[in-house]
């Protein structure tokens, strides 16, 4: 019998090292940062390299299986019965751990070059190391409590890194927005935790998943939906996605690591991890699948209207995570996770490639002021082109396999309308990605000044520091799709057999075979690419590119430039009412009612004082008269009433 998410309990020093090394690096860099600066970058990178090595060495632990227990489980501390913290390394968390430390290491190396000369570079690497620690906490936790801790900590790391250049008001605002929306997500997970703890009395994955049958369908749906609130906030699902484009205020390596490869896929991880819950709740599957599809489509459409190269990539990230969520949401867990794996590489590569361009152009991010970079920056072209082909899903790049797997999985699990949305999104994706590629690389340079490599930066970090990581990312971008070939017997399927083997099985085969589906998708993608070519890359279009791009910008519908008004809606629905309530409390309740009430009491006391004061005339004879009257009154009382005793 298979125990979901329960490993072989023992002490695993390597696992602990993987988890704690980045934390140690972060603390060291925080405490010594200002003194070691550039050396701190090397230190942070070395620490992460070590963490990657220990993660690799932990692979046998993660794959060990006995009596239905899979992977390595390391208990940590117990808060209360049922509330304890621990680590779990099984194939699913292993995959994430390797991506986090591996891709993270490459991005660390890249950052040494990208941020060379920044006076706070040690602080940057402290944040990066802290992020890796937080993300590892999230994926390695063996229970919902630790997951929540990691969930909150990655939000904090993201906040720090988005606001890394904190003198910039826009970066400050973006970081706050990201954090607050993510706290809203945390709150959703907390609610799910309350329900689970009240119903089952435990928060460990193993304990919860073994007793899913005890939960009523409505409770289960509530748990899934509240968990999904967390996923939606973290993974930028509609309508909680608005922080992601703004998060591009952070340095580009941050966008690559956190806002593309790892953190934003935490929602995918959570659903894959909690697949016993989703297996048992068809309503939750339908809901999450729909939200994922909508996010994929909305992200792709919004990608059409952007001019900032990083925001284009941000919306494409949102769109691709929509695919993943749609995949794992409807029950195609392996396909969703495969897309995460492929996306981690090709999206990191796209961001890092964009970073090379931005860096070379002196922090220029507007693609209208690029153009003609193909000759000047052939390496960037290579990186961006392979990444774009992968994201579009062109054979034989990794995106082809993973996207097809998701789309066909959606079809298999009985959601043809979601399949349709997915295919449509694939076409739009091809269009806007190639639009970016053509505008950036084709034609003549539209940059005012003559720009060479590193023109905008006085320092000279060696170029290989930034190019080598990108080159290393191209390999998996081409290679990993092959892992999934062979259906149930593919290496990918066998790797995840212990996790997803007993999960939801697809419905009966449909009329369309997987090959047909691939053909359909590939043809619409090619159609998208061709459209982009005819609009942006024909010789005629290239000749008068500046005017055409300017005209396009002016004609952009408000829906696109305002990103479907999601920001305004969230602002109007939540932010403004809360502030208005605060102002009402401050101006009316506090000042007028509470303080005013107390003030009225003092006014009353003062009035009473004035009233009694008026009796004190100072006329001695008046006092005497009152005295006499008092005596007379007493006398009259006894005369009239008489003494009763």
């Amino acid at each position, binding site marked *: 019998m298979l125990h979901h998410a329960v490993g072989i309990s023992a002490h695993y020093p390597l696992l602990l090292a993987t988890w704690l090394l980045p934390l140690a690096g972060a603390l060291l860099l925080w405490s010594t940062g200002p003194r070691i600066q550039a050396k701190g970058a090397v230190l942070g990178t070395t620490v992460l390299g070590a963490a990657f090595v220990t993660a690799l060495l932990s692979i046998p632990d993660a794959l060990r299986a006995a009596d239905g227990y899979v992977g390595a489980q390391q208990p940590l501390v117990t*808060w*209360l019965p049922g509330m304890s913290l621990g680590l779990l390394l099984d194939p699913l968390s292993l995959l994430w751990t390797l991506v986090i430390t591996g891709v993270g290491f490459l991005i660390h190396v890249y950052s040494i070059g990208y941020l060379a000369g920044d006076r706070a570079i040690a602080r940057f690497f402290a944040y990066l190391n802290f992020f890796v620690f937080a993300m590892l906490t999230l994926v390695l936790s063996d229970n919902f409590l630790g997951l929540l*801790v990691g969930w909150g900590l990655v939000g904090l790391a993201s906040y720090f890194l988005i606001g890394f250049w904190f*003198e910039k*008001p826009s970066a400050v605002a973006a970081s706050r927005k990201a954090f607050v929306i993510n706290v809203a997500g945390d709150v959703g997970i907390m609610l799910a935790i309350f329900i689970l703890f*009240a119903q089952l009395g435990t928060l460990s994955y193993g304990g919860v998943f073994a007793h899913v049958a005890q939960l009523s369908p409505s409770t289960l749906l509530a748990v899934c939906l509240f968990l999904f609130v967390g996923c939606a906030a973290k993974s930028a699902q509609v309508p909680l996605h608005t922080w992601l484009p703004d998060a591009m205020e952070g340095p580009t390596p941050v966008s690559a690591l956190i806002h593309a490869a790892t953190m934003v896929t935490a929602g995918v991880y959570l659903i894959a991890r909690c697949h016993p819950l989703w297996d048992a709740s068809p309503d939750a599957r339908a809901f999450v699948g729909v939200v994922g599809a909508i996010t994929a489509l909305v992200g792709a459409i919004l990608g059409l209207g952007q001019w900032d190269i990083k925001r284009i990539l941000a919306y494409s990230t949102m769109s691709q995570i929509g695919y993943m969520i749609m995949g794992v949401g409807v029950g195609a867990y392996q396909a969703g996770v495969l897309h995460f794996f492929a996306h981690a590489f090709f999206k990191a590569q796209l961001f890092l490639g964009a970073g090379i361009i931005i860096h070379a152009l002196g922090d220029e991010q507007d693609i209208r002021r690029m153009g003609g970079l193909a000759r000047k920056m052939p390496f960037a072209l290579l990186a961006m082109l392979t990444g774009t082909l992968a994201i579009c899903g062109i054979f034989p790049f990794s995106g082809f396999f993973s996207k097809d797997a998701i789309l066909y999985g959606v079809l298999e699990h009985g959601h043809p309308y979601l399949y349709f949305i997915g295919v449509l999104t694939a076409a739009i994706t091809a269009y806007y990605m190639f639009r970016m590629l053509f505008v950036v690389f084709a034609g003549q340079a539209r940059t005012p000044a003559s720009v060479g490599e590193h023109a905008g930066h006085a320092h000279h970090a060696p170029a290989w520091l930034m190019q080598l990581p990108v080159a290393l990312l191209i390999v998996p971008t081409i290679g990993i799709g092959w892992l999934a070939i062979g259906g149930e017997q593919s290496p990918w399927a066998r790797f995840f057999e212990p996790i997803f083997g007993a999960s939801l099985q697809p419905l009966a085969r449909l009329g369309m075979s997987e090959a047909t589906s691939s053909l359909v998708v590939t043809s619409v993608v090619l159609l998208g690419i061709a459209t982009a070519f005819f609009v942006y890359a024909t010789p005629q279009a290239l000749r008068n590119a500046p005017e055409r791009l300017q005209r396009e910008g002016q004609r952009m519908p408000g829906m696109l430039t305002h990103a479907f008004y999601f920001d305004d809606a969230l602002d109007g629905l939540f932010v403004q009412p*809360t502030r208005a309530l605060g102002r009402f409390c401050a101006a009316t309740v506090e000042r007028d009612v509470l303080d005013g009430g107390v003030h009225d009491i003092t006014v009353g006391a003062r009035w009473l004082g004035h009233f009694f004061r008026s009796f004190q005339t100072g006329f001695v004879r008046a006092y005497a008269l009152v005295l006499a009257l008092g005596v007379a009154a007493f006398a009259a009382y006894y005369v009239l009433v008489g003494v009763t005793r």
Partner: protein
Amino acid sequence: MITALILGPILGGLLLFALPRTADAAARACGVVLALAALVVTLTGSTLPDESIAWLQRPFIANYHVGLGQGLGFWLVALLNLCTMCAIAVIKVPRVRDFTALMLLLEGSMAGVFLARDLLVFALFWDLMLLPVFLVLIGWCGHATAAWKYLIYNVLGGLTLLLATAAFGIAAGTTDVIGHGPIPVLTPTWAAWIFAGFAFAFLVKTPVWPFHGWMPETYVELPAPMVALVSGIQSKAGLYGFLVIAWVLFAEQMHAMVPVFGSLAVIGLVYGGCMALVQSDIKRVVAYSSLSHLGLILLAIMSGQPLALQGAIVYMLAHGLFNVALFLGLGFVEVREGTRVLSRLGGLGVSNPRLAGALIFAALAALGLPGLGGFSGELLILTGLYQAGDYWQTIVALLVIIVAAAYMLRLFQGTMQGPVSDDLPQRPDLSAVEVLALIPLAAMIVLLGVNPSVLSSGVEPSNAVIHALPLQKERA
């Protein structure tokens, strides 16, 4: 030895006046050493026996009875001594000697409140707590309104407490009842009036909405080290009273009042959060956030659910720690920049990275970042509330957590981030002493966040006092 925890700081504080008027460093050092000594005695003293001296025989029996024990009082006194030590170390006001002496007086009288095992002793120390705060408000602050507001509100509360104590003594025959002994049976009418007296004092001292009128101005006007103690620890006196006196001696009346006090707690929770979001003064932001957090703790106490009560204790300690850290941090800002107005501050993080680090740490603990003390307390409280069936309170509290993230970041970013304000002076970063004063607070916050069970392991689950509570609450 237990008496030394009370009299040590008080007499030590008075003896400080023997120092020369200008001996700032010496006074500060004496204060730190005294507080440290008290901390050491507390931490090693959990097995000390109670101390009791017969005092009154008529009209009722009252003893000078103090005890440390292993319960909530122990943790609060430890927290008090730790925070006093850290706060005295960073005093930066005119007339340091006098200020330090008043800090020690406050420490001793608060220790008296938490250590008292006799209601009359409790009430007397409760009133003594007023004095140092009032004197600081009069002597160190710009205008006297805050001082009188503080005095009138709290004297009113202290008066009802004293009357209720006297009435309790006459009705029950003895006041030596805190945390031990049989629970006296009072006639319902007497019990209701006496309970009302106690409850009013607790509500004002905490403070609970709408009795918080004294709080914002007091917090704003007091110099940072004193306000740290007032908001961090003195505010726990009322909650301690609810837990240790009201729930134990007046369980029936408490049950009857749970809907009322629970509603006040929820209102305070939301009200404080919304108010904190729109304040322009940095200390006011924290003052109202405190109102919000205290509302949450009161809500937990009112629920009477065991898990929520454990959470309440964790959160009381965590709140003490992070509020002290927050106010000390804001005090550093105020002393450096000479202003507390959020819109004028900005960009301090560039030249003061350590100060920025300290402030963001405290702010994160306050907004309930997972892994820090505020989170574990909040989580336990809310889990308990949900289990007890208080669904809508749980949901409201969760929504306020989101608001808390917004106002705490607004506070931090408004002071430390954004463009550097050119019209403000550029002052040096935190000194080594200032950093050292914050480290123990931070360490305790992390410890409470990673493993709140430290409170209940070794010393029995938040302890004798809680376990004495009649917790089983009837629910349909």
